[in-house]
């Protein structure tokens, strides 16, 4: 097929895969920030933790990748509840600055801890045979793992969408994000909701971290080096908006890929240029509430 079409397909496909990773990790951050206005800079640390759990499960216990990913998401999600109850809870009413300071502190501690247990050398996980190499979709071939990543993303989106738009809890969360006081006054237990979303968000982050090993490798500093990326997705998407986070992930993922592909020299530029462009026009992000 013609070159330009081929290029376009490559960009869309790779961008889509990248976008899925961004979405999976960022969505939890977006909802928790939207719900409680809680700035959680330790979110990346949960992703990193998830990654290492997967490493342990696959390498030391010899589990398959898929079960490991699921277990890791659940484990990290569960553990995150303790942090939420023990530490985060104390800072709901606190200022952003205090939240920033504590969560950055947690991220630092997470990095040191991971270094202690896993060492600084980047880890990777063995892939099952069917995820190696590439799949042929007739008109051209695509890397299997990325196809898999996209599939996982699609499934998650479906599940989240259902949970968010169709279930009672989802409705409550949306209500709380929209107007917390109101929600509380009609008897919604926002704190409980937050614990829930926090756990789910952290679990998703962990899943994202696990999936990212194949993409970006995994070392302790994973906890912070991609944080900016996640925050950008959240800001561009709009706090607490599932739709927004998805759209932002897609736009940023695809633009970033296109930029790297077409204008490698200015590669780093694009994602930020897009961010600025969007925020200047829509300060609250794609689907955020204007203040």
């Amino acid at each position, binding site marked *: 097929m013609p070159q330009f079409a081929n290029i376009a397909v490559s960009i869309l496909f790779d961008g889509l895969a990248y976008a899925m990773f961004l979405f999976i990790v960022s969505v939890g951050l977006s909802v928790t*920030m939207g719900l409680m206005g809680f700035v959680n800079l330790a979110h990346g640390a949960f992703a990193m933790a998830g990654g290492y759990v997967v490493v342990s499960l696959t390498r030391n216990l010899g589990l398959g990748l898929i079960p490991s990913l699921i277990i890791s998401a659940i484990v990290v999600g569960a553990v995150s509840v303790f942090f939420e109850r023990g530490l985060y809870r104390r800072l709901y009413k606190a200022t952003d600055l205090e939240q*920033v*300071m504590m969560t*950055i502190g947690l991220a630092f501690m997470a990095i*040191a801890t991971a270094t202690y247990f896993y060492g*600084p050398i980047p880890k990777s996980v063995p892939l099952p045979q069917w995820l190696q190499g590439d799949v042929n979709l007739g008109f051209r071939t695509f890397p299997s793992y990325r196809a898999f990543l996209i599939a996982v993303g699609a499934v998650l989106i479906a599940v989240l969408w259902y949970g968010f738009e169709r279930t009672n809890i989802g409705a409550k969360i949306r209500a709380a994000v929209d107007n917390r006081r109101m929600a509380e006054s009609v008897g919604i237990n926002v704190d409980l909701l937050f614990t829930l979303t926090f756990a789910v968000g952290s679990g998703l982050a962990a899943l994202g971290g696990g999936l990212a090993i194949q993409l970006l490798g995994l070392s302790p500093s994973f906890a912070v080096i991609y944080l900016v990326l996640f925050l950008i997705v959240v*800001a561009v998407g709009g706090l607490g908006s599932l739709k927004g986070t998805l759209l932002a992930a897609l736009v940023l993922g695809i633009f970033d890929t296109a930029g790297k592909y077409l204008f490698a020299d200015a590669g*780093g530029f694009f994602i930020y240029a897009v961010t600025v462009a969007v*925020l200047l026009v829509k300060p*609250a992000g794609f689907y955020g509430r204007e203040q």
Partner: protein
Amino acid sequence: MAANSDAIGPHRAAARERAAQYLLRRHRFTWAEALPWVIALACFFLFPGRMVFGNQLLIWLMFAVSLDLILGYAGIVTLGHAAFFGIGAYAVGLGAAKLGWTEPISGLFAAALLAALVGFISGWFLLRYRGLTLLMLTLATAIMLQEALNLRSDFSGGYDGLPGLTFKPLLGLFDYDLYGHVNYIYVLIVLAIVFNLVRRIVYSPFGQALTGIRENVRRMHAIGSPVHRRLVTVYTIAAGIAGVAGALFTQTNAYVTLSVFDFDNSAKVMIMLILGGTGRLYGAFIGTVVYMVLEDYFSKLSPTFWQFGIGLLLVVAVLFAPRGVLGLIEDAGRFLSRRKP
């Protein structure tokens, strides 16, 4: 308390005078304020071997003070402050490397002006936004600046930086020594001047207006304050000061790389400030000292795991001194003064 307000004349006259005196005196120097400078000088004689570190510390301190002006007083939360530090750093760096402008003090002014100019322009556009949006916009601007300079690495030296910069001796008299003694005094003096400037601004009516914007921007509009103009003004000033800090960084290191624009620096300076306490002038002092001294100590204790110590410090600080070390002291003070008859 409220009941007392119905008290008789003389009492109220006294109350009036007390209140008036408080505002009349507040901006005057107290002896306590000499303490940091005394300590700084004492350190110079006590730790002659640590002056290179001390020098870095003072530069970060100045950087933190500039951030306090906008974050602590005007309530502008930014993650792009390193941009101005970097501009100042590169102003003198490129000046020395390309134009042979090696006179340090004039270099400081040049750096301040350039950084302030960029601060003015970016502030004009960005300060209409607040919160996370502003956070991301400032952050993105800083990184784009860095990327742009890296594109022209033939000119900026990229991440290998501009090596072997040499600057004229200070005032043509004092040459930079290996032990950083001259540097330390140099930076300390500049810091003293800059800090006094900031202190004046903070206690000026303009400074009051800034705190007003921080406390309640809606009301500021309602009482007729040109909020945007105020914010852009202070942002420009803070940018200039950050630029001076950056310039000192390059001059005292005789070296600069693009990493000065790193997001990490913006974050680090913010953390140090919060740790010390925002909007309290001396919060920057305490925060910087506590953070950097402990960082130095931990990283010698364990070059690999020191981050754990710093992390723990931050978490503990939030839980026990949420409004920073100075905030803690202040609260204690209020608590005690309550006890007084």
